[in-house]
């Protein structure tokens, strides 16, 4: 009897000890940029010397391009190199993670450079210093002159591995380079790497050029030019420099873009006070009228799947944004806020439309969902417009103009970029003033 009693007691006690699994919610962390260490790449001593530049400095320069790229995203905090303990050659073979953890790095980038047979070979590794393991190891071979592109491609790989999103560093920007007094501006087509290097001009500046755009393969540019005082849409081949008029319209054509498959150019055509949207097939030269309304219809932008077009129209009396099927049917207005809306651009991810908004004399860059809901204004200014998306749909580039004095003094136009979260607003350095920027897709695909 007593035994049974004690057995029962034992069971009671053991029940009491059966704790369920404790669960703790972690809903907050810090949003500080991730501290990473980018070690200068080790240059293999067997490397050949080149006439064009100093091979010995290449390892350092590649790491600087990577560092600049990652820092510009606002997501990473590259640590100061003078605090690095390990030398680049050893770090690349076998990093001592404790050394790197000591300076608070959570990720480490190391690499090696070899120039042989007039070819450049770059190897890099991305390490998780906390878990003490390698995350990526890749190598690239190219001509030495392309070393910047290798640095950009490496930056993209690192960005992708550490954020889960594809990168946007191996890209170019086409824009309008401006000089001269405000009422007599000289404008040329400018082309540069996304970080501002390798800038070159594609036109001479003898006539006004405006609103350039890349085609999906980044080999052609469509833009509007006042050549011979006839404002028309043109096509330019970046490689050959050859320009040609798009179609033979009896009036001004403007606001051109390519369709996502690169086969058509979509643009506005103005005649007798009315502007409508047209497409022209580049191969067959067949022209199709897409909108048919006495209002101004302009700034068209395809959805990435090519099925829809968003555009700017004042058919309601004020500039608003509309969406229609790519054949022009089912036109639907999507903006209803106070003020006016312009320059709609569809994100390459298909989820958002970026736009310019003017309200009470102030200019805003914003994003909204493709049905017009969820409008978010990212930045406000005296004058700014024409956002363009990075290929991963996370960053917008646009341009700003400053207020000018009585004689036009103090006027400047500059390129700016901002993350779609509204953070990390920064100016993009250009040699001259700049406007109408457009971002290419990733050069390597």
């Amino acid at each position: 009897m007593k035994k049974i009693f004690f057995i029962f007691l034992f069971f009671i006690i053991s029940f009491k000890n059966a704790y369920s699994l404790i669960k703790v919610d972690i809903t907050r962390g810090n949003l500080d940029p991730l501290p990473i260490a980018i070690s200068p790449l080790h240059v293999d001593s067997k490397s050949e010397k080149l006439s064009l530049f100093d091979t010995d400095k290449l390892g350092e320069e590649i790491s600087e391009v990577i560092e600049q790229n990652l820092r510009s995203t606002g997501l990473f905090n590259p640590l100061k190199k003078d605090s690095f303990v390990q030398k680049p050659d050893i770090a690349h073979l076998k990093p001592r993670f404790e050394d790197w953890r000591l300076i608070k790095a959570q990720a480490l980038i190391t690499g090696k450079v070899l120039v042989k047979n007039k070819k450049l070979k770059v190897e890099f590794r991305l390490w998780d210093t906390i878990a003490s393991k390698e995350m990526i190891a890749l190598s690239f071979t190219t001509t030495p002159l392309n070393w910047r592109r290798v640095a950009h491609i490496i930056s993209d790989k690192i960005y992708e591995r550490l954020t889960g999103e594809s990168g946007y560093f191996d890209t170019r920007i086409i824009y309008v380079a401006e000089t001269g007094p405000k009422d007599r501006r000289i404008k040329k087509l400018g082309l540069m790497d996304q970080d501002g290097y390798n800038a070159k001009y594609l036109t001479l500046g003898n006539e006004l050029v405006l609103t350039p755009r890349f085609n999906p393969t980044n080999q052609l540019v469509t833009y509007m030019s006042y050549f011979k005082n006839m404002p028309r849409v043109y096509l330019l081949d970046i490689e050959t420099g050859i320009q040609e008029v798009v179609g033979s319209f009896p009036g001004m054509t403007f606001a051109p873009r390519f369709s996502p498959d690169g086969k058509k150019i979509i643009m506005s055509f103005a005649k007798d006070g009315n502007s409508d949207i047209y497409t022209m097939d580049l191969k067959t030269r067949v022209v199709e009228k897409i909108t048919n309304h006495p209002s101004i219809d302009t700034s068209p932008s395809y959805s990435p799947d090519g099925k829809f077009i968003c555009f700017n129209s004042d058919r309601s009396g004020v500039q608003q944004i509309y969406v229609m099927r790519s054949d022009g049917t089912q036109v639907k207005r999507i903006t209803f806020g106070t003020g006016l809306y312009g320059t709609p651009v569809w994100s390459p991810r298909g989820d958002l439309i970026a736009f310019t908004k003017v309200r009470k004399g102030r200019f805003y860059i914003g994003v909204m969902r493709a049905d017009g809901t969820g409008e978010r204004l990212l930045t406000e200014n005296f004058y700014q417009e024409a956002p363009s998306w990075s290929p991963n749909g996370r960053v917008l580039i646009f341009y700003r103009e400053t207020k000018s004095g009585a004689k036009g003094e103090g006027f400047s136009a500059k390129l700016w970029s901002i993350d779609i979260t509204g953070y990390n607003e920064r100016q993009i350095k250009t040699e001259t003033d700049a406007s109408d920027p457009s971002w290419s897709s990733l050069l390597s695909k």
Partner: protein
Amino acid sequence: MRFSKALRNLFLVLFSALMISACATAKKEAADPLKNDVYTGTETVEYLANGVPDRVFFATNKFSLTTAARDTLRKQATWLRKNKDITVTIEGHADERGTREYNLALGERRANAAKDYLMTYGVSGKRLSVISYGKERPVNPASSPLAWSQNRRSVTVKAN
């Protein structure tokens, strides 16, 4: 003595009153050359011929012609009918306070508004060509409401 002093004082008062009032009116004119957001001044206006202004002005985002604009265009039409061998280009412009592409279309609308009006007064369309410069060629580079109103214009330019 007292009388002359009083007279002198009276003169002084009258004189200064006149001066002030004159200034006042002058200031008023210069301060408000805009009427309903349309420029009504003559500062930037040039002339095609004696008494024929070369341009008309518009309100923000609008392309409708004011009474003054129509008056100007009628004068242009009369002059064009008299000088039958002249062809003109009508340039449409917009101020800088709008998006670039829309401004190109707006300039074209303004130029066409002027062209249509000229045609209703007997000028053949073949003599009138139209071009839009959007906001690219302001006549006044300042960033002020006055400058912007002077830039919202449609200018008739001799082509030959």
